[in-house]
């Protein structure tokens, strides 16, 4: 290998914007390499902010912003960040972006910000973000890093939204705040139905994530770890 490097032609091949490799950056995290269900990262936020779908969406958008821009910035600076202090440099960039998101949420969607505010601050500790900074952005160019950020956020987001869908539907009888299960079915107005309080509690989010993992591995045997 090392002998071949010297004889490589100097001509740079322009890589296509959406070649096969680039498409894989987006599609792989959706399923086979999902950050939550396969890499088991970012579980805390999957449990904490999936009680309501609106919160899950706001969280996803916030993570999208932080991860895509963070990935791009770190990728652009990857050759100038001294490797001995790279973690702290990544943290500073991440913290800056998270603060920006927090301020924007407070300015434009104050009600939501009040509910998810504490978790937005905690995006900085979301393992997916530091994981992608460290594992991908530090070693790749800006464009693939941006795609990687989008892909991983989408993989994270769809799990969040699916979990939140079931939790909000069965826990509160609403979706995005709109009533789906009619009031008249409830026991308080003469029906037989009750909201499932278990859905509001975090353990149920864990069970739901577990069920998604179960379905995923039943469909794709290569994800099953060999004991």
């Amino acid at each position, binding site marked *: 290998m090392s002998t071949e490097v010297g004889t490589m032609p100097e001509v740079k091949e322009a890589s296509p914007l959406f070649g096969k490799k680039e498409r894989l950056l987006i599609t792989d995290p959706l399923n086979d390499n999902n950050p939550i269900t396969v890499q088991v990262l970012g579980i805390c936020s999957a449990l904490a902010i999936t009680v309501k779908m609106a919160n899950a969406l706001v969280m996803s958008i916030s993570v999208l912003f932080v991860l895509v821009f963070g990935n791009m910035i770190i990728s652009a600076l990857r050759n100038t960040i001294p490797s001995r202090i790279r973690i702290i440099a990544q943290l500073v960039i991440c913290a800056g972006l998270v603060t920006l998101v927090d301020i924007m949420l407070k300015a434009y969607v104050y009600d939501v910000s009040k509910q998810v505010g504490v978790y937005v601050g905690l995006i900085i500790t979301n393992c997916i973000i530091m994981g992608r900074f460290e594992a991908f952005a530090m070693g790749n160019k800006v464009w693939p890093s941006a795609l990687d950020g989008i892909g991983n956020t989408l993989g994270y987001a769809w799990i969040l939204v699916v979990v939140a869908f079931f939790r909000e539907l069965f826990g509160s009888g609403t979706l995005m705040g709109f009533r789906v299960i009619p009031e008249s079915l409830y026991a308080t107005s003469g029906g*037989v139905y*009750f909201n*499932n*309080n*278990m*859905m509001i509690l975090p353990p149920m989010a864990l*069970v739901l994530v*577990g069920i998604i993992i*179960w379905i995923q591995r039943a469909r794709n045997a290569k994800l099953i770890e060999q004991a």
Partner: protein
Amino acid sequence: MNALRKLVDNLKPSFSEGGKLEKLHWVFDSLETFLFTPGHATNTGSHIRDPIDLKRTMFMVILAMVPCLLFGMWNVGHQHYLALGQFLAPADGLMDKFLFGALKVLPIVVVSYGVGLGIEFLFCSINKHPIQEGFLVSGMLIPLVMPVDVPLWMVAVGTAFAVVIGKEVFGGTGMNVLNVALTARAFLFFAYPTMMSGDKVWVNVSTAAGEQVVDGFSGATSMGHAAVGNMAGVVPLMDSFWGLEAGSIGETSAFACLLGAALLIFTGIGSWRIMLSVFLGGVAMAGIFNLVGPGLNNAYMQIPVMHQLMLGSFFFGMVFMATDPVTATQTSTGKWIYGFFIGLLAILIRVVNPAYPEGMMLAILFMNVMAPVIDHYVVQANIKRRVKRAALAA
């Protein structure tokens, strides 16, 4: 019997490989072995064999639960008529009470078995393995730990959750970490607290024309009364021993539980070590409360030890839940530790935390989770002791 055997033999080909109903082979197999002890013998080297198989074991446990079930049916009726001010003495209106209770309890039993076995059959057909009989006992335990007024759809949801998430995801019968029936109850307890606790669900107060609930009636259990400091509402010792109190269907009678315990211990199916150590744990905690209660001016803590244990589901959990061989510890020393802490925690939770009027369910589930750890340390201690002994001998 011969006619039955012939019928089974006639049906067999269509369920065997290549037959029309091949998909249902394991369902057929399970029903066949239910009727007749299987004829096939182990043909490779076997170890210790016991003529009693899982089906017979499970059946024995169900037999042990029958006193609780029958008494529970009667008690449902008894509590109902008490609320309406009729048949006040326990001996009055025996058949009325029993029939009323049976009509309330049987649908819950049917739903629990229907949903649980349906899911079990489904999983066995998909995974192509023989149907295990673990659910036979769970299916009977679930109705016994439900309040009488629980809606049937909740029983179905709780059972489905317990069988799928509590058992099948871990690999089915014998692999579950948590007791299946208690998983169902805990799920419903946290999911629908208004229908699983409080003072509205333990006694059925449906009234026909011309009937009405007596003045001053409260449907709260003794534990519910005690949790809010109303000691007058706690039933006397002998009533709680026989089970004349409001509560989950099968849990109220310590006497019926003891009948079941006798059968389980006599047949060697239930571990007497666990039962005894749960009891001792309860005695220890209730005793401690007796000692510190007067100083803290806490009336709940001052309930005499025996009375404290008779109340609520302590005996039922001790006999039927804690002894579940799958979720309990396996080592003998482990069983003492496991049981002792169940008794201790059950009394501790029920007295100290008013949010959980009955601590038995949570205590057993907690110790279920701890059981493998206990076993691990017991085994390690044994290994260490033997290594030391070997070193001394050498």
